[in-house]
């Protein structure tokens, strides 16, 4: 199993870069090498989407607002656990 990859797409026109960067920092601080990558993607149209290995765990359009950090972490923990121990 490969380590999970996180993607954060945010509306750059809405000034959400701070929230995207804060989320990325929090996830890297918590999971570090247990993640294969954290991508931050500037987008538009009021977007703030977070996906883990292609699975959408938060969508501002669908869920409203910014993601709950705990929810995102839980989704990652589930994938990290299924990926097994890392080999470093």
């Amino acid at each position, binding site marked *: 199993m490969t380590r999970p990859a996180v*993607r*954060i*797409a945010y509306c*750059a*026109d809405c*000034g959400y*870069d701070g929230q995207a960067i804060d989320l990325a920092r929090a996830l890297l601080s918590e999971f570090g090498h247990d993640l294969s990558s954290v*991508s931050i*993607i500037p*987008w*538009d*149209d009021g*977007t703030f*989407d*977070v*996906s883990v290995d*292609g699975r*959408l765990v938060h*969508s501002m*359009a669908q869920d409203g607002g910014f993601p709950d950090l705990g929810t995102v972490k839980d989704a990652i923990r589930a994938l990290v656990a299924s990926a097994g121990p890392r080999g470093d």
Partner: protein
Amino acid sequence: MSNVVERQSLMTAERFASGLTYEAYKAQMKQNRARFEKFERENVLRDADVEAFRALHRPLKTVVLTEDWCSDAVATLPLLAALAERSERFDVRIFYRDQNLDLMDTHLNRGTFRSIPTFIFYDDEWAEVGAWLEKPVTIADLRARLRLEIYASDPAFGSPDAPSSDLPDAVRERLWAAITRMRDDTTPESNREVLRELKGLVLERHR
């Protein structure tokens, strides 16, 4: 429907004077300078527009709330600046939205959103003549429709409701290029609509 609101004035001569001039704002822009200057070169202002606003007896004090990352502001602020310069009927000062939330929060879009750019017009007594917010509603509708057409034009773009983050990088870049082109292509029409709304707002109320 017009994107226009009226509110009680929070502005004073001292506060107005603390705002940035257009040139000072441009000088400290950190993002979007090239697109901003492109729209300066391509603005749609006609002599007839300038003459129409000269019907104002005195210049309106004009507060702009914005941030330099805002693409709507990048497209519209150069138009306002050109109109101010050529008509000599708008004295423009620019304020960062996030440092002026008291002003912003009395001009919320649909009572909820801190939309920018916001233009607030005042008379000589600092009474608010009116405010213009973000973008013309007709243009928002047009761009939403064109956006759907872009998605429909290439199956690789997937659903407009699906997260763009999970598109392959090359596909997402192609989609982004198409969206950016659409927005730039509709900016002249948007700015003509901005002028039409501004005429309705300030000429009909403050002639």
